[in-house]
């Protein structure tokens, strides 16, 4: 019988494993994992030989929890999956319920949803940008990113009532009409953002150290991107067209003009550029919509208790991290029989081992940063 301290003592006698390799644990408590991801890294000197992700530290069984909640209730839980694009998660779930119930969403609600989706995407990319700069060792960009993100969260607070887990979507529309100040504040934000985004390029994108840290690091070929199921900016950085907003447009995405940002280099810098350019695309989408929000209902008339017919329903949306799929099995009752979320983070993480082998520890942090992992999204 071993006691815990004995085991610790025996394993700590040597820093190296049997083959003379250094095994280090990055996480679950580590500044670069942005959460409780645990990576067991086998090193040869500073070169990575193998990465083994250990998941489950923040598993809250959200899918199981949703089975005991009604179709109106389960939407709020999904804010806690990918908390940086909470609004888009809610959107996906609301869409799934609407598909099941065959609810027609009013035009006004669709406009509001898309504008808020894009604001959420910008906020998420802002945070990613700051966190990536922090991963490669620059602290200051983080604060500039949060300054702009703060404006978005203020807009969210005013209209949705919360800053991070908005829960503004309900099946059939949105919970309340937009705040009277909403349009003006979004326009102010667009002005501020356009002024400050050039600073980002000065400070980070053009910086020679930053470029050297990201270029030719973590190369992901288009074939690998497809076979690992990568989506979102990670796949688009490898030149794979994967924008759900273009492939299967939902709500009013087929009425707005925007480009799917594609980079073909496949390295970390390509993924970086995709996200930075996506922020500008999102701004352009908001600019097209903000003045043209049609008058009308913000919520369709729905029954108090939702009982979708028996069957299976699947919807997918493009979150800030990639493709989020919501799969609902209904048995005709008030609660879903089974819910499955296809989260983008999980698939993107699975490529990490493949693309990081042979690179340095410093590269791993840069690669992990550009994969934009949100751990509650991976574990759910």
């Amino acid at each position, binding site marked *: 019988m071993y006691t815990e301290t004995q085991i610790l003592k025996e394993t700590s006698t040597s820093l190296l494993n049997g083959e003379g390799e250094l095994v280090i644990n990055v996480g679950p408590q580590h500044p670069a994992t942005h959460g409780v991801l645990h990576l067991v890294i086998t090193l040869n000197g500073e070169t990575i030989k193998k990465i083994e992700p250990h998941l489950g530290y923040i598993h809250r069984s959200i899918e199981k929890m949703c089975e005991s*909640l009604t179709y109106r209730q389960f939407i709020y839980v999904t804010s806690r999956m990918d908390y940086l694009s909470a609004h888009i998660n809610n959107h996906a779930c609301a869409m799934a319920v609407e598909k099941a119930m065959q609810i027609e969403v009013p035009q006004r609600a669709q406009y509001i949803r898309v504008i808020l989706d894009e604001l959420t995407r910008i906020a998420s990319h802002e945070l990613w940008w700051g966190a990536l700069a922090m991963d490669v060792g620059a602290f200051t960009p983080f604060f500039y990113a949060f300054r702009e993100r703060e404006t978005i969260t203020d807009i969210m607070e005013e209209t*949705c009532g919360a800053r991070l887990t908005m829960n503004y979507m309900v099946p059939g529309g949105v919970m309340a009409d937009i705040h009277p100040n909403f349009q003006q504040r979004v326009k102010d934000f667009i002005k501020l953002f356009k002024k400050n985004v050039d600073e980002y390029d*000065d400070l980070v994108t053009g910086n020679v150290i930053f470029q050297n840290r990201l270029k030719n690091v973590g190369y992901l070929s288009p074939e690998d991107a497809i076979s690992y199921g990568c989506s979102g900016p990670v796949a688009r950085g490898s030149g794979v067209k994967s924008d759900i907003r273009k492939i299967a447009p939902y709500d009013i995405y087929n009425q707005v003009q925007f480009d799917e940002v594609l980079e073909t280099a496949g390295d970390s810098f390509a993924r970086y550029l995709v996200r930075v350019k996506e922020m500008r695309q999102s701004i352009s989408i908001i600019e097209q919509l903000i003045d043209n929000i049609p008058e009308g209902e913000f919520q369709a008339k729905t029954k108090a208790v939702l009982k979708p017919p028996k069957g299976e329903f699947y919807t997918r949306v493009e979150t800030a991290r990639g493709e989020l799929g919501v799969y609902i099995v209904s048995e005709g009752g008030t609660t879903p029989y089974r819910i499955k979320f296809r989260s983008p983070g999980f698939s993107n993480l699975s490529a990490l081992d493949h693309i990081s082998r042979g690179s340095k520890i410093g590269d791993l942090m840069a690669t992990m940063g550009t994969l934009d992992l949100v751990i509650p999204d991976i574990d759910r």
Partner: protein
Amino acid sequence: MFIKDYISDVYKAAKSLLTGMKTTGYYFTHPKEIVTEQYPDNRDTLKMAERFRGEVIMPHDENNEHACTGCTACELACPNATIKVITKFDISPEGKKKKALDTFVYHLELCTMCGLCVEACPTSAIKMGNNFEHSVFDRSKLLKTLNNEGSKIREGVE
């Protein structure tokens, strides 16, 4: 041409670094750009958005009357069993029995501020308050009764 490439490399690198330093230098010399809010000091001037969801409250008017009929729609809508509505039977002057609110129990410690209860309430008896400073030393203090002592339902609310 190796030397030329080498020198242009060094020049470009130095230029990009100086551009970055210019940005941080700008903020160093412009303290007006500081965005920090000194939170506990600015409590008096801090204005939360009116829709901000901080806690569930039940507004009472000057006659100590609320609008809750005790229909338990909020209790059913709540995903976390945060709300417990205890009802009683009032006997009206005509001798009819009528369901009415006895105690509106609110578990703040379970609440996720999703706002579904407010959405579900047919008489707008509850709403989300702006207070977000909920820290207490004893967890039992988070268990709240929302209706005031001796309050009753407003006339005309069905």
